[in-house]
């Protein structure tokens, strides 16, 4: 009878000991890892051969790796902050699965973004999108994405408008694409046209990632409007009193502002001398083209 319970008891005891030891080890601290992320196979052609008939699932693995890598780098969890593996990971993903639409769109959005949000490589974003267009020449989203990179990263509105126009001629292109081309050509760089573009992305994107990112960009544009407005108020106070206001409370006392002065994410705006800024911990930082304000 006793022997019948001996084995289960021993198993429970050993498993409990293993869990206890693991918890103890955890408290003692993990060994620090010095190495950065490693990409053992960089050649898309080699990987395609190694994948045998599993190229689709291997592409999914590289896609997951790409977004984890991007997230980790953006959150400062990797020693290398240059996003050097982002393009190779996306290239491997799209070589194994040339129809992986979201990988191209992700690349267009984040490869072009400047540090700390991305590597600031619009050339690689366009290279990736060109590969996508080779695989799917009728996909308007890819043409739209190329125009988008020209718009935001190169500020080349004529080229951007040309890509939007090409996108508008493809099957399934939304009706706003042609007007977008016209607006971009006529008012490129205008904050209102930028807002229009992000709103359209927010409304037509099918992935939460893009919808959330478009929402963040729209909030950034709102914050830029609000900062400009607050800046004029601060300048008016400074002109009248011959000095910058000490804080928002002083401006409120004199009737210049009222209510909570918070950005669209709820973080209070910061007054540094006579300059209005976002709070350092604001999730809207860095604002697009900081230092080169949109017209």
């Amino acid at each position, binding site marked *: 009878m006793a022997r019948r319970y001996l084995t289960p008891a021993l198993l429970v005891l050993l498993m409990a000991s293993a869990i206890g030891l693991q918890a103890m080890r955890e408290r003692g601290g993990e060994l620090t890892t010095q190495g950065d992320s490693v990409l053992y196979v960089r050649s898309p052609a080699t990987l395609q*051969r190694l994948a045998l*008939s599993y190229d689709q699932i291997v592409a*999914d693995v590289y896609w*997951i790796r790409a977004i984890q890598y991007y997230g980790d780098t953006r959150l400062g969890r990797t020693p290398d902050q240059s996003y050097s593996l982002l393009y190779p990971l996306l290239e491997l993903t799209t070589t194994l699965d040339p129809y992986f639409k*979201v990988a191209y769109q992700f690349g267009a959005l984040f490869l072009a973004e400047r540090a700390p949000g991305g590597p600031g490589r619009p050339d690689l974003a366009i290279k990736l999108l060109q590969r996508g267009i080779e695989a799917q020449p009728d996909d308007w989203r890819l043409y739209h994405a190329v125009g988008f990179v020209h718009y935001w990263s190169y500020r080349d509105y004529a080229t951007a408008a040309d890509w939007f126009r090409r996108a508008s001629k493809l099957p399934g292109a939304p009706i706003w694409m042609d007007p977008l081309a016209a607006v971009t050509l006529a008012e490129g760089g205008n904050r209102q046209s930028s807002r229009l573009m992000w709103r359209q992305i927010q409304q037509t994107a099918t992935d939460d990632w893009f919808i959330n990112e478009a929402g963040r960009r729209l909030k950034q544009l709102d914050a830029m409007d609000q900062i400009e407005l607050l800046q004029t108020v601060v300048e008016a106070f400074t002109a009248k009193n011959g000095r910058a206001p000490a804080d928002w409370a002083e401006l409120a006392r004199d009737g210049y502002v009222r209510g909570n002065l918070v950005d669209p994410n709820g973080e209070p705006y910061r007054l540094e001398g006579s300059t209005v800024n976002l709070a350092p911990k604001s999730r809207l930082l860095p604002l697009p083209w900081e230092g080169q304000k949109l017209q």
Partner: protein
Amino acid sequence: MRTVRIIGTVAVSVFRESVRDKVLYNLVAFAVLLMAASYLIGQLTAGQDIKIIKDLGLAAIATFGLMIAVFIGIGLVWKEVERRSIYSLLSKPLSRAEFILGKYCGLGLTLVVNVTVMVVAWYAVLAVMATTVPPQVRAEWVAPATDIGMLRAVGLILVELMLVTAIALFFSTFSSPFLSAGLTLGLWVIGHFSVDLKNFQSVVDSPAAAMLARGLYYVLPNFSAFDIKQQVVYAHPVPAAYLASTALYGVVYIGFLLVASVAVFSRRDFK
């Protein structure tokens, strides 16, 4: 008619044996894998969960099937020889050809049951996942989550598995299990490099080497032809003629291997 009955009897006994050997337990592993993945992948993939579950399902069906085809296939004949039960079997009114074909059909039946159950579980997980996706996102999909067209890929996977089974059975008629497994998996890997063999002349200068590679391309089984996973996941067209010719190619190759297996096994001396 008698031959068909005997082959059926051997096939059913192989199927029962695989059930006794707990081969069908892999279905539990498959179901757990898919259900766990469907939850975890949603957290990791930025909205690509349905696509990834489609890929994962097809890859898992192919992999689980491959493991069964190779590791059960190589033991089909060898086990009977090792246990010495081959003597009592061959003393019965059962020809060697009927024995080989029965063994093959039995493992084929096991594979069909396995793949069928895995496909049902896979579609069920996809159907449940699809209910969590907003209608406007679903409207953008090129194909529904439970697109029936994906069964075309499953069909070709099944033909591929039957071909792998025939290879494993062929090697098991004259070789040890370890060697049979190595040779079968080796052929399966080489069979995925068919395109490279075909285009070998573009990387070598020697016409003889190019001709040899070309010859191997035609002689070795072309497993890459059975892979249409990408096409079905993206609902790209796959011509019926392609499906039919590929399936027919598989059937003819299986026929060749079974005839070869019977020929080799018939010449074996078990004294």
